[in-house]
């Protein structure tokens, strides 16, 4: 492991090393765009084909939790950017503080996602044998608003009349929901791991105005993960939100 500020043997200058690291991360993020892109394409085509089922599916998502998570993630991008800035101006203590804040906000996001996933499981909305879009409206759970649930039941029944294969098409929606948010969550977990590594380094005082490349490139990665969510939130949560 090389120490702060030291050149790796194959580079000629620190400038070259830093430029290479940044360019490498940008190219990696481009590959990630293409990676998620396949899922976004699948989503687009299926939403166009099965708009009713996708609307119903989207309405079962908790918009408060989703919007809250969006704010949490945007704030974590802010704290990440502040961490990069702190490193650049040499405020070493702040670097640690902002990195920890970013990690904390990221963990909150993941916790909320876990809550949402559990909700989907309880409502029989996980693709598989017991998937049933009619389940929740006909089986109220403690804490449900019964009036809302009745409206939901009405919507689901109307949708079934329009599209008898709602369950199959709804499964497509939820497969994409779990696939896309799951892949996103996996990237966030990896990001959390990277943040832990950075926090460890920041406690050791590694990041200075002369050398802060790891903070900068993890920052780029974290911002990318944030941007993916900015797309996921409206596409998954905000379809047919007329109520």
């Amino acid at each position, binding site marked *: 492991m090389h120490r702060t500020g030291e050149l790796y*043997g194959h580079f000629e200058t620190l400038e070259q090393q830093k430029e290479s690291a940044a360019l490498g991360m940008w190219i990696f993020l481009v590959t990630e765009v*293409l990676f998620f892109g*396949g899922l976004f394409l699948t989503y687009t085509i299926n939403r166009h*084909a099965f708009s009713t089922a996708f609307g119903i599916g989207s309405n079962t998502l908790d918009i408060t939790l989703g919007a809250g998570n969006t704010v949490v993630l945007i704030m974590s991008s802010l704290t990440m950017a502040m961490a990069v800035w702190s490193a650049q101006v040499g405020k070493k203590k702040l670097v640690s503080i902002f990195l920890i804040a970013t990690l904390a906000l990221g963990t909150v996001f993941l916790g909320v996602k876990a809550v949402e996933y559990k909700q989907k499981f309880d409502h029989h909305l996980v693709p598989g044998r017991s998937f049933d879009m009619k389940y929740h409206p006909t089986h109220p759970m403690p804490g449900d608003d019964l009036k809302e649930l009745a409206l939901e039941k009405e919507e689901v029944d109307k949708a079934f009349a329009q599209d008898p294969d709602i369950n*199959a098409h709804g*499964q497509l929606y939820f*497969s994409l929901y779990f696939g896309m948010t799951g892949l996103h969550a996996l990237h966030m977990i990896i990001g959390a791991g990277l943040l832990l590594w950075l926090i460890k380094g920041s406690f050791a005082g590694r990041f200075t105005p002369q050398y802060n490349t790891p903070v900068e490139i993890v920052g780029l990665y974290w911002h990318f993960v944030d941007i993916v969510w900015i797309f996921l939130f409206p596409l998954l949560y905000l379809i047919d939100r007329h109520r």
Partner: protein
Amino acid sequence: MSDTLTAPLPGHKMPHEDYLNATYGIRSWLLTTDHKRIALLYLGSVTFFFFLGGIFATMIRIHLLTPTGALVTPETYNKLFTMHGVAMIFFFLIPSIPAVLGNFLIPLMIGAKDLAFPKINLLSWYIYIVGGCFVLYSFGTGGLDTGWTFYTPLSSVYSNSAVTPAVIGIFINGFSTILTGLNFIVTIHTMRAPGMTWFRLPLFVWAHYATSLVMVLGTPVIAITLLLVGLERMFHLGFFNPALGGDPILFQHLFWFYSHPAVYIMILPAMGVISEIIPTFARKPIFGYSFIAGSSIAIAVIGFLVWAHHMFVTGESTYAALTFSLLSYLVAIPSAVKVFNWTSTLYKGSISWDTPMLYAFGFIGLFLIGGLTGLFLACLGLDIHIHDTYFVVAHFHYIMVGGAVMGYVGGIHFWWPKITGRLYPEALSRVAAVTLFVGFNLTFFPQFILGYLGMPRRYHTYPPEFQVLNVLSTAGASILALGYLLPMLYLTWSMRYGKVAGQNPWPATGLEWKTDSPPPTENFHVTPEVTWEAYDFQNRPDLGLVAGASPLAPAHGDD
């Protein structure tokens, strides 16, 4: 026949310390970050998969000796052509030139000490090995019978073969490709030696830059596509299954969006090799350097726009088909530019018939046939007749074997002295090159005829009137096998007993030839400063090629 320069200059000795003997022991190889050693690790593994794919091919050709095919059952036959394709495409062709020759040569050619990310380079190899293990596991536990194209819903629902481990293995292997491409792009941008401007780069480097763009943009798409197939298979989801509302054509679009550019990943590096060999053995600067460089980028870009020419008969609209057909014709133009420029380089050149040059000539002829028959297939009306026949099989084998593999073997021969410090036996290597050429044509030319006459691909039987052509093809395959076997034998022999090559036996103009053979671990004892243009034979007195000077004069080649 003019003189060849394979006789080494007198007094050559192997360098005292080079990258091969700098450190000893298996850990120094398995934990190396030296791009040259990693290239050799790849050489071993891609050769293994080449053998494996070759065994499947042998079984296919033996089975097809008779119209009713008595060697294997129909189900096994499906597995044979599938595994042949998967092993050859993902684990041999795609890595071959970039991971072996690209890894070894790019830092040397640009005057750098290593790639930008040496540890990621080693990681790429390990990822390749892990992916390979998953695929070998799939092959060993029931095989794969979906075709290398994994069309759904056969692959995602109905196949009873080991699809899931195979798609996981190919998914993992994709990251090896992505990281290699990323490494190359950053290296070429940031690590060129002083004076090595973009337009002084060897065309091999331009070719790999273009290839890396395709690797980095295309591979993630196949990754997510195969991931979806795996998820569909494991959790009974319905993305591509019509019974659950899914769309098999969506799979085809996603699959071919990568797999067409993938064929450019396979051919662009080979074109880069040819662009190095031809000027060297014509002793002339290459004709139209900037056009060849630009055509590599053009092929990479346009190559992303033609994928649905694989789907002309799956029900796409006429307008879509017309667009893709037109674009497929357009993508041939930059390839043609290269062929014209290589040929023009030969005009008034001082041509020698060394083995790498034989492979280069073979490449030009066979790539020409393969490329032109691609245009046959891109023609809508004609494609209806020849789609899914042996015409397609012959077309892509002309490009991938007649083109890419010849480029690979030619490149291995051309840079063998640099990699090992030794020369291979020239007479035997020429015999092998000719054997390969003859065997190849005998194997695959009959397949054009078979396809045109209507023999479908991927069928385990055929009408009896096609037997003669099939037997010719199998006979050719046995000669082709000999053509591959010979280099494996004499190259291995030469590592110990070959003549010592010296720094620049050909001589060639690239920066890699201005360091020892084999190079020291750090590539150059002093960082070079480049003040000459690429392929500038005129202004390089150090090559000993100036009129009047004997090419066998000692000392000058030993900078």
